[in-house]
């Protein structure tokens, strides 16, 4: 096994391209190192991307925010402008693991680990986040939603690396929120996650909405029916009920050690509704 610590992304991509065995990208390492402990883990190459210039930067531009692939989640919560713009995304990122894990884990890594229960992914998808992917042929931008394809699998080629995640500049009257259910208050994996991002007009009527569930299907579920229930309405009991019903209906989980199908379906509705209320409030809406 080799460890490489390149200083340019081109170099990193080249190392991955030329590796002749299993190769892994190391950013925060909070998932990779756990896998490395397994007796069946095998790798030819580990490429640490933290020495690449800019990887640890959050950049605010006219279009929004660019979050380097090596930015630890704790740094998101320390970035005032980002917290103000995308509180739901930041909350989701800050729910991953413990304080110690926060010091290391990244939203790019959370995305590439492709766990159905990843906390930051539903929030990023709701926020229309995009990933900048660099490979031998240069860079491309894709929707974050298109990165994970199945549990543990992504659409990235073996010689591609996420360089950064981009979040758009939020509209004036918009808000996002992420809630998850875990049995413990911390140090837990989402049994259900729900993210909502919406914009309002001056009357408080929802103009656009995205409702996304995590941990209830192999990948995140974008609940169009819940969004449709919100758009054109204020947040009243009927709307909330419709959001809840749509989320429960869209939930397609399995029974496992963390929760039952019945439990997840029900809680998906509850969290979808509650996240919608928080997002609505953040957008300036009053119920």
């Amino acid at each position, binding site marked *: 096994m080799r460890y490489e610590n390149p200083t340019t992304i081109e170099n990193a991509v080249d190392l991955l391209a030329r590796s002749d065995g299993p190769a892994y990208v190391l950013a925060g390492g909070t998932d990779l190192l756990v896998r490395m402990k397994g007796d069946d883990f095998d790798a030819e190459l580990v490429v640490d991307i933290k020495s690449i210039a800019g990887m640890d930067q959050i950049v605010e531009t006219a279009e929004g925010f660019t979050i380097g692939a090596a930015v630890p989640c704790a740094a998101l919560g320390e970035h005032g402008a980002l917290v103000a713009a995308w509180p739901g995304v930041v909350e989701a990122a800050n729910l991953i693991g413990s304080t110690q894990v926060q010091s290391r884990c990244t939203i790019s890594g959370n995305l590439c680990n492709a766990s159905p229960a990843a906390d930051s992914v539903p929030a990023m998808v709701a926020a229309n986040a995009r990933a900048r992917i660099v490979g031998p042929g240069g860079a491309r931008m894709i929707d974050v939603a298109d990165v994970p394809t199945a549990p543990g699998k992504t659409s990235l080629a073996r010689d591609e690396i996420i360089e950064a995640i981009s979040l758009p500049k939020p509209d004036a009257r918009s808000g996002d929120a992420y809630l998850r259910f875990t049995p413990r*208050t911390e140090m837990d994996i989402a049994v259900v996650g729900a993210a909502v991002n919406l914009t309002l007009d001056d009357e408080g009527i929802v103009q656009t909405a995205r409702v996304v569930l995590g941990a209830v299907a192999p990948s995140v579920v974008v609940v169009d029916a819940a969004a449709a229930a919100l758009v054109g309405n204020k947040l009243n009991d009927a709307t909330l009920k419709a959001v809840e019903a749509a989320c429960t209906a869209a939930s397609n989980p399995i029974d*496992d050690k963390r929760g039952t199908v019945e439990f997840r379906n029900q809680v998906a509705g509850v969290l979808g509704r509650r996240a919608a209320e928080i997002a609505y409030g953040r957008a300036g809406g009053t119920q």
Partner: protein
Amino acid sequence: MTFDPSYKEQALKSVGTRVLRPDGVDKVTGRARYGADFNMPGQLVARVLRSPHAHARIIRLDTSQAEALKGVKAVVTAADLPDLTDGDTALFAILDNSMARSKAKYDGHAVAAVAAINASVARAAMKLIEVEYEVLPHVVDVDAAVAPDAPLLDDTIFTTGVDPAPTKPSNVANRSEFGHGDVDAGFAKSDVIIERTYKTEQTHQGYIEPHACVANCNADGTADLWVCTQGHFVYRQVCADLLGLDVSKLRVTSSEIGGGFGGKTHVWAEPVALALSRKAGRPVKLVMTREEVFRASGPTSATSIDVKLGATMDGTITSALATLRYTSGPYADAWAETGAMTSFACYDLENVKAIGYEVVVNRPKVAAYRAPSAPMAAFAVESAIDELADAIDMNSVELRIKNAAQEGTRSSYGPVYGPIGIGPTLDAAKAHPHMSAPLGKNQGRGMACGFWFNFGGQTCSDLNIGADGTVTIAVGTVDVGGSRASLSLIAAEELGIPYEHVKAIVADTSSLGYNDMTDGSRGTFSSSMATISAARNAIKTLRERAAMMWEIPVEDVNWEEGFAKAAGPKHGNRAPLSIKDIAAEAGNTGGPIAGHSELVADGAGVSFGTHICDVEVDPETGSTRVIRYTVIQDAGKAVHPAYVEGQYQGGAVQGIGWALNEEYVYGEDGRLQNPGFLDYRIPVCSDLPMIDTQILEIPNPNHPYGVRGVGETSIVPPLAAVANAVSDAMNVRMTHIPVSPPRILAALNAQAKE
């Protein structure tokens, strides 16, 4: 000199103060050495290969490729641990559990082990061991295991305790029964009957330090073992028996121990480490991974318990019956029996019967866990008591007070009680402000009582007085939670010197006589007894030396508050001699001054506690938060109150974790699905409120200072206290521990449908 352990009321100076613990600095600076913090020259690294099957016959085991790997110095299997147990079934279970002989009996059962020059080689070697299994049908659930068509674990197990003796083997290893009176007649007299079945899931002690040891067998038949254990003398005995070593030639040193809670009273992989060292001819370090700890050490029983209570409308419980089924892992043991004994111990019952069934299943060998077997029985009984209170419209504290056992009550497990503390804890609970504090929306309050036997046992203490008059005490009872501070306080009290002049250590097995392990809440109770006795023996010597220095008869020398004083006017106005004065002359008055004690500390006295718990439940998700918690327990005498509080708080929180989220989750394949701290959810800091404590001090008549064991009882009431609080908040009875969010939501949904 015979030691009189009986209680004498006296003013205490040191005992009862909150001094700084002697091992504190080592532990806050990272210098304290735990099981994995010790190394020997030339040490090898051990790894254990474990069964991936819940139940499988080992058809073929080929270690030749692993042995041929460069850097591998030994590979052992059951063949390297020949059966020397001579018909001792308990010892054989330890042997078979340490290394599977013909069958792997649970997911994680050891089948082979390697010792290599480093971890990478050991890991590679493990992969080269070939094991061919014949997978057998398995059973992990307690109720499924007693079904007539259940897969049989062991065809040598025939249910004991039934008449006539069965002719067919069974997964029920033993039936036991306790009680008195006529339960049928009692039920006939009752106005109300509550009858329910309860279940509790298997939990792990969850000590943060994995099992770890360094074993060294020398060519001359001597051996050393450095190990984290609750009882190094017991480990020495068991390992010597299993390996055919002379007891005196195996020296076991107990490291600092990173939590045990019963799980480190049992021998696990230590015989394997010794066998590897014996075969390799080099020291071997064996440290379990966290996954191994969950899969192959610890846990407590999973249970299924039927309770039937009958009462008259005035709140008199006329009859109580419980049938308790406890898993013991794949080996016969006595966990259900203990559960049956404790189930109704808090109450004064005219008619009571408790029947225990010991059930073998394809799960890890059950280990003691803090008041082993009592919390599950208390969950069932205390839940039923709460329901009974509702049924007769009586306050649940009043109902418990009305039926509480007291001095003279015949206990449900047999003997008549002497002075006991259940009544005072209930009175304190009734009067506690927590009991009457207002509750908000979706909040509920529960209470429960708990009982545990405490133990004493064989104990040694060596007390040596240095030339400067300061004192060291060496004890053989492992310090798991601050007992060195308590014992130093005790020595200071007896000798009449400042606490700071005493230093306590835990000695290895070659330095003292046999000591029982730190279990049964016996650590401070027993070792304090031995320390008092040793100190009194030292005082006798100090008086003799003072007499010699003064050239007066020893009868005329008194020991008062740390000084030898010449008695009466005939010796003039001699200035009292301090320990330091006497110690300074020791070389000329007969040599070093010491006090020793080897004794059996018996008569520990049973223990009771009452807990009050408030929870808030989210009715839409089943999420439960404990928002207030109070522990009331009798300590006899709190030697170091801060560490008594710590025992109360720690036990309560373990019980809260058990009640809310902790459980072993098995798949259809019989494999454990959550062998890690991420999915085996012990409480984290943000899950909890402060845990309030109230220490009652009702002196134990069988200890000079009235000390009672305090370590275990605090885990007994929380399961029921939490479940009762959830039931109160949601108005739905929770009968399955843990009351996890899916179970609560399912119960609420079922109620809504009715």
